[in-house]
């Protein structure tokens, strides 16, 4: 298999983008990426999208997107793994180049969530329909169950969870593309409306529109497109039990741990080597559990990480310098690709005020549903 590099990126702002349709979002991000790479053609297209069908009634996104990009004729595939759709698309784009099948691949993620669909109900389709959604559980509700079990077992508090959101917003305030580019306080979080006990509104990532895209080429060709390519050094994907009730331990994200272990093994690095990471903080508790599953902290110690500054800029392992899903926004299918873009900028030294000094190795972790699917990528500055 060939080595693969990301040579360019493009993304829309994330937020309630009333003037942009699903197609507009994709075209904007993908065009930007292609322009930044200096390409006007690609060999293969992968699009991560959770549910164009339920949000805007549009399935069959792959040819639609290629068509509107002016690339009708190019092979294209829409990839779905709930909130891990973007990461899953990136992995397939990687395989397309690594296998030798394609030389220039466009990987994008897009979601249009604000056109009037009942987002609570659509997001709940990522849960087990027969055994979870049937009973009226919501997406926040699933993570609330995890949060409560975690708090019971490890003694974590609502304040610990609040610190995750505060930290993500401190970073997001420095990100011009973020949906909420402003700081919040612990008090703000603890006084926000309870959504599903114990998770409050400010513990939950928002409903967002947005798109993100990257261009992948073989590493050996990368210099044609940029003088600072970022190599994909490790890839790991895993699944876990779909229903929370079927997991041995509801506080442990085994799919994330398995995906990470595969990525670390392929990259030949360990958690201690990662200098910056984008982690799937769909809810504050998710970031807590993910950093444990990624091996950044011991089990049971995730809750203290944000409060103690471990995961903030300047800390031992800065997590979500983009602002994370919480502050940057979470257009579901786009998030996995947006995570890669943040690491791309970090490793190229162009993250501005969010820059982690000297970052050479970074990681993204994208997760679907309540943790049933996970994709981890490890990147390296070349």
């Amino acid at each position: 298999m060939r080595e693969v590099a990301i040579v360019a990126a493009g993304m829309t702002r994330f937020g309630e983008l009333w003037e942009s349709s699903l197609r507009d979002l994709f075209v904007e991000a993908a065009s930007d990426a292609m322009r930044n790479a200096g390409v006007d053609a690609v060999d293969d297209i992968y699009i991560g999208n959770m549910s164009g069908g339920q949000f805007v009634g549009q399935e069959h996104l792959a040819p639609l997107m290629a068509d509107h990009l002016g690339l009708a004729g190019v092979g294209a595939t829409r990839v779905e793994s709930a909130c891990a759709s973007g990461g899953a698309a990136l992995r397939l784009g990687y395989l397309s180049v690594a296998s030798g099948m394609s030389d220039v691949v466009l990987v994008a993620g897009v979601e249009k969530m604000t056109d009037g669909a009942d987002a609570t109900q659509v997001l709940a389709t990522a849960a087990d329909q027969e055994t979870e959604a049937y009973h009226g559980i919501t997406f926040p509700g699933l993570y609330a169950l995890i949060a409560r079990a975690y708090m019971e077992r490890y003694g974590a508090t609502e304040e610990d969870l609040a610190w995750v959101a505060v930290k993500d917003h401190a970073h997001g305030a420095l990100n011009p593309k973020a949906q909420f580019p402003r700081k919040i306080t612990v008090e703000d979080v603890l006084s926000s409306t309870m959504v599903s006990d114990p998770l409050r509104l400010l513990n939950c990532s928002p409903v967002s529109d947005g798109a993100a895209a990257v261009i992948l080429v073989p590493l050996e060709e990368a210099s044609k497109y940029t003088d600072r390519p970022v190599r994909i050094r490790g890839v790991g994907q895993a699944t876990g039990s779909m229903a929370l009730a079927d997991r041995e331990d509801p506080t442990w994200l085994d799919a994330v741990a398995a995906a990470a272990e595969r990525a670390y093994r392929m990259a030949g690095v360990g958690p201690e080597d990662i200098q910056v990471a984008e982690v799937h903080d769909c809810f504050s508790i998710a970031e807590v559990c993910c950093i444990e599953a990624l091996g950044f902290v011991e089990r049971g110690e995730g809750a203290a990480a944000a409060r103690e500054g471990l995961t903030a800029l300047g800390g031992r392992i800065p997590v979500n310098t983009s602002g994370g899903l919480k502050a940057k926004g979470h257009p579901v299918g786009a998030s996995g690709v947006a995570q890669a873009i943040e690491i791309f900028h970090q490793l190229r030294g162009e993250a501005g005020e969010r820059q982690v000094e000297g970052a050479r190795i970074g990681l993204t972790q994208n997760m679907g549903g309540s943790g049933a699917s996970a994709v981890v990528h490890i990147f390296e500055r070349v």
Partner: protein
Amino acid sequence: MPSPRYWREVPGRYRLEAGRCEDCGKVSFPARTICPSCRGTNIASITLSRRATVVTSTVVRVPPDEFLMEAPYAVALLDTPEGARFMAQVVDCEPEEVVPGMEVELEFRLIRKEGDTGIRCYGHKGVPARTQP
């Protein structure tokens, strides 16, 4: 809710029919064809007794449209004496009263209905136990 799907699910929803792997003893509710623990296919049908214990719970305050009138409501993961674990609402008490370790009985209840003209979908919910196990 399509009629065929609902009809297939009746034995599990109405009678709490579950599956126990005859090779490793793992109980799945609803029953599966392949045991999630040992991948065996020797699954026997068992009926759960109507008692359970709360493992963890939450109170849904921002519900999907269909559940708007019921909010806030408690949803929990429940463990049964037979070894099954599944998700269900716990009702007939203040939702905040549902706590880990709480003993519940499982009662036949209406779970959801599609507006005023769709089929009514039944199943079981937990209620505070009247008697001790």
